């Protein structure tokens, strides 16, 4: 059974095509890099998998399940916490998660928070970008699900925080779960990826094993990814 099976996914919004004819099959316990330029459709694809974007044609099945609400129980999405008031303390956010997600593991959250040195009493507005991301990662990983979606967890974050976050991912990703990490800057996460999925021109243009790219082309992941983008440079309107 594949963990995520996407078939002929098309998504239009505001009269514009965001994703077209996306078919993708992801299985096993892998860490997958979802790569593409800003605006390529990475976030939209994640939101469609998580069920917060709607009205797409085609199917997204998670463990053979296509029902919107039961699928949500299988996916943990790195919610940027926009819905919380800026003066909400971390402890209140954690209490909210514990209340509404039956799969939220308080003990696991505590381990993550200790490892990432999160101070429970701080309010959301007082957090630096790096600390806020650490909180988002802790909350996302503390749920026990089959799929983890991390949407650009490293954008605008200092290298120390980045390393800590990468380590926490390696330590606490459940062994049997699949994880998708989106990024437009690859080199920092290249070593932890099993596979890469590259989005360009509203669709998936490559889905490959990371070490196969290195073996087959003698290229780094970043060079391979940039190569794919340069091929089509003439199509871009500048």
């Amino acid at each position, binding site marked *: 059974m594949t963990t995520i099976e996407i078939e002929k996914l098309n998504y239009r919004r505001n009269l514009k095509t965001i994703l077209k004819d996306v078919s993708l099959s992801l299985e096993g316990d892998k860490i997958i890099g979802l790569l593409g330029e800003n605006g390529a459709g990475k976030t939209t694809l994640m939101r469609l998998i998580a069920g917060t974007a709607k009205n797409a044609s085609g199917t997204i099945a998670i463990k053979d399940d296509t029902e919107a609400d039961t699928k949500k129980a299988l996916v943990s999405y790195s919610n940027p916490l926009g819905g919380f008031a800026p003066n909400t303390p971390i402890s209140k956010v954690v209490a909210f998660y514990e209340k509404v997600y039956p799969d939220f593991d308080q003990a696991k959250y505590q381990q993550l928070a200790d490892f990432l040195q999160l101070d429970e009493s701080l309010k959301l507005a007082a957090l630096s970008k790096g600390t806020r991301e650490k909180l988002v990662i802790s909350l996302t990983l503390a749920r026990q699900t089959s799929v983890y979606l991390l949407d650009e967890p490293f954008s605008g974050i200092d290298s120390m925080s980045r390393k800590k976050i*990468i*380590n926490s991912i390696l*330590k606490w990703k459940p062994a049997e779960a699949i994880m998708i990490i989106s990024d437009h800057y690859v080199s920092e996460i290249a*070593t*932890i990826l*099993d596979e890469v999925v590259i989005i360009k021109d509203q669709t998936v243009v490559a889905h490959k094993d990371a070490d196969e790219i*290195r073996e087959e082309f003698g290229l780094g992941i970043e060079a391979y990814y940039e190569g794919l983008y340069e091929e089509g440079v003439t199509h871009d309107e500048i």
Partner: protein
Amino acid sequence: MEFNDKVPIYYQIKTVIYDQIIAGERQPGEKLPAVRQLAVSLTVNVNTVQRALSEMIAEGAIVSKRGKGNFVTEDTQVIETIKTQLITEHLSNLYEQLHRLNIDDQDIINALVTYIERRGNSDDNH
């Protein structure tokens, strides 16, 4: 550690562990850290570590004991073979590069002996 992104990561992990075994940093019969622990300390994916281990198990350098973990082989023959392979690999790189410069075999040997002697002296001085 720093990886070269152009070379398969599993292959680089293998190289690191083989180097450690040959250098004696990992003794025959020694238990290797758990897969996840190795992954975290190398900042690589668990599956990549698993793949490197599988190949080393297939090559006989690592022995997997069910429920106990992975151990460096106690078969010195195997370690010797890997050592020989590694030496041959390094030497063949050196030889090919010098050979391409039209340096003949005797000159290569002489140059190597001289280099080792000088290197040995300078290392002694430290």
